[in-house]
């Protein structure tokens, strides 16, 4: 009898350890279709690179990555999140590109006890009043990159800046972030229609108001349109253009070409950031995918490494949610950004740079770091967070 019980115990034990060896599922909800599809593609590819480098593991724990396309639609994002959590029993989610999708999906995820690690979107609400113990942002709070350029433009003694952004919440936040650190005068502040293609009218008005610099936030294709038309109107020769990194990633630069050369933009990362981790990442990404990584790819990669560090701490046992959370908070992973830690609202405390767009020796367009604007910069909303 004893022998039977013993063998049963052994059997059960081996079964449970067999379960432990089963890969931890990570659900990635991201934008792969629509014009903005390349953002999600880069986040995914950066994330996958980290898994491939670990030969199917993150932090030595085997993982399985499930990827679904939200098509930039909040309601679709919610459905995918629900499916991941209910059907696949996923407890770690990541991947959302856009703030409006994040606002619809993240609260639902964290309410049900799962973890969400944001590799991109960082809406102010989730950093302030809506912060949550299970929500971590490994990229930036939305305002951060704009703040850096605001600071830089002030330091460079520009005193009459023209501002332009699309008429939607992220556009207004962008200019608010810029103005938080910009101390000079404002030549004009224009909000355009979201998705606008032609900026001829705005450029004519802009030229007439004679600013000494222009700051714009137009993500994706809108930025391509604007930068091309800005150069075609000859404005790039007379009035320097500034923006956040979102309009100057390596894939947009490829589509814009010479028109963007010389533009200064704010970013928390750059392909030429000189740390051993970053050099290795950029080289590995180029080998794996045949293109230079964008900041989105670096964020996806860092998100994977962060998750790996916490998985290792709990040995892949997601039942230890508190230990997993504590491990995430430590942010003990080899970031490609040089320095990285979490503030108390689980948003990054990190260095932010300004970069200049250049054409390198091979004729490719990329960014070169000019200057570190902020050291250990955190966001403006941590005070509103009650954690």
């Amino acid at each position, binding site marked *: 009898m004893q022998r039977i019980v013993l063998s049963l115990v052994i059997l059960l034990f081996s079964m449970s350890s067999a379960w432990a060896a089963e890969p931890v599922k990570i659900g990635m909800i991201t934008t792969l*279709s*629509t*014009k903005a*599809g*390349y953002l999600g*593609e880069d986040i995914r590819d950066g994330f996958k690179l980290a898994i491939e480098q670990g030969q199917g593991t993150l932090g030595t724990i085997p993982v399985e990555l499930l990827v679904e396309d939200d098509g930039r639609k909040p309601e679709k994002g919610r459905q995918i999140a629900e499916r991941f959590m209910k059907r696949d029993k996923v407890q770690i989610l990541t991947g959302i590109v856009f703030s409006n999708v994040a606002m619809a999906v993240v609260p639902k995820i964290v309410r049900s006890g799962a973890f969400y690690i944001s590799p991109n979107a960082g809406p102010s609400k989730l950093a302030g009043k809506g912060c949550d113990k299970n929500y971590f942002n490994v990229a930036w709070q939305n305002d951060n990159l704009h703040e850096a350029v605001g600071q830089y433009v002030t330091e460079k003694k520009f005193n009459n800046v023209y501002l332009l952004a699309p*008429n939607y919440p992220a556009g207004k936040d962008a200019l608010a972030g810029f103005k938080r650190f910009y101390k000079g005068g404002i030549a004009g*502040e*224009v*909000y*355009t*229609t979201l*998705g606008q*293609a*032609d900026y*001829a*009218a*705005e450029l*004519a*008005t802009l030229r*007439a108001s004679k600013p000494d610099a222009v700051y714009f936030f137009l993500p*994706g*294709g*809108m930025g*391509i*349109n604007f930068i*091309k*038309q800005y150069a*075609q*109107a*000859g404005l790039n020769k007379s009035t320097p253009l500034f923006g956040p990194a979102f309009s100057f990633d390596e*894939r*947009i630069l*490829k*589509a*814009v*070409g*010479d*028109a963007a050369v010389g533009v200064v933009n704010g970013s928390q990362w750059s392909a030429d950031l000189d740390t051993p981790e970053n050099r290795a990442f950029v080289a590995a990404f180029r080998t794996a995918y045949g293109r230079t990584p964008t900041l989105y790819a670096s964020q996806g990669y860092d998100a994977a490494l962060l998750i790996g560090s916490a998985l290792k701490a709990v040995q892949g046992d997601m039942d230890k949610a508190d230990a997993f959370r504590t491990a995430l908070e430590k942010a003990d992973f080899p970031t490609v950004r040089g320095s990285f830690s979490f503030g108390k609202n689980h948003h990054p405390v990190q260095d932010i740079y300004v970069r200049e767009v250049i054409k390198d020796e091979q004729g490719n367009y990329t960014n070169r770091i000019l200057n570190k604007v902020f050291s250990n910069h955190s966001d403006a909303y941590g005070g509103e967070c009650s954690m």
Partner: protein
Amino acid sequence: MLLFIEQLLNGLQLGVMLFLMSAGLTLVFGIMQVINLAHGSFYMIGAFVAATVAVRSGSFLLGMAVALPVAAAVGMIVEFTILRRLYDRDHLDQVLATFGLIFFFNELTRIIWGRQPLFMDVPPWLGGAVELLPGVHYPVYRLAIILVGTFVALFLYLLFSRTRLGMQIRAGASNREMVAALGVNIRLLYTLVFGLGTMLAALAGIMAGPILAVEVGMGESILILTFVVIVIGGIGSVRGALVGALLVGMVDTLGRVYLPDLLSVLFSSATADTLGASLSSMSVYILMAIVLTCKPAGLFPAQN
């Protein structure tokens, strides 16, 4: 004042761009009674093919010379294989089928070219700006767009009023059976008209390539305005498309520029900015509502 002239030119240029798009769409609807939502896809195909060829060969004109026939061929294949089956069906079926085509072409473009937006630059000989009036500098390329649009309008006018082919097309639009009975190959005629329509869309896409982002889904953003244009102009009327396009181009451009200023007379500057931005993005739709209230069939309703 000089700024106003420049803004008028901007409005004209946007109008001409919209005309290139809407002429093809309204032609196909007026003659073949088909609502073609995939019109924007041909705009995209034109831009993608032209951008690829232009970058490889370094010649914008060669890009155009390749892209136009390619787009026309794709259009005629679509007409031959898909739309031909839909002529006798309900408009709703046509909308459904052509809506599906949008997804098909977007995905196909993504498979062929990837998610990377393409690069396309203004050809050097059209680069830079000219001084039209003292103090009014205008990009040469945008003037070229206006010129191309004028030529197309002229070409369409001559085609329809002065040629035998144009006469057959007009006759086919008024009475399909009778024209067929008179020995005209109406099916071939329709395929040709559709090819012409797609070629015009592709031309708009090629001309837009150097100033806009050449990316998957680029056709959808202009398609909505194109529909506004043909509804304002009267569905099926090329003349209506011309007038509608210029109207929409002007209202959109001038609204964007001057509405916030006008409103700041009435409200505080913050309210005026927000209100102005929202109102100016609605201005073309308000225009459409006004036109439809006064003339429900559009400004120049087609005869049949």
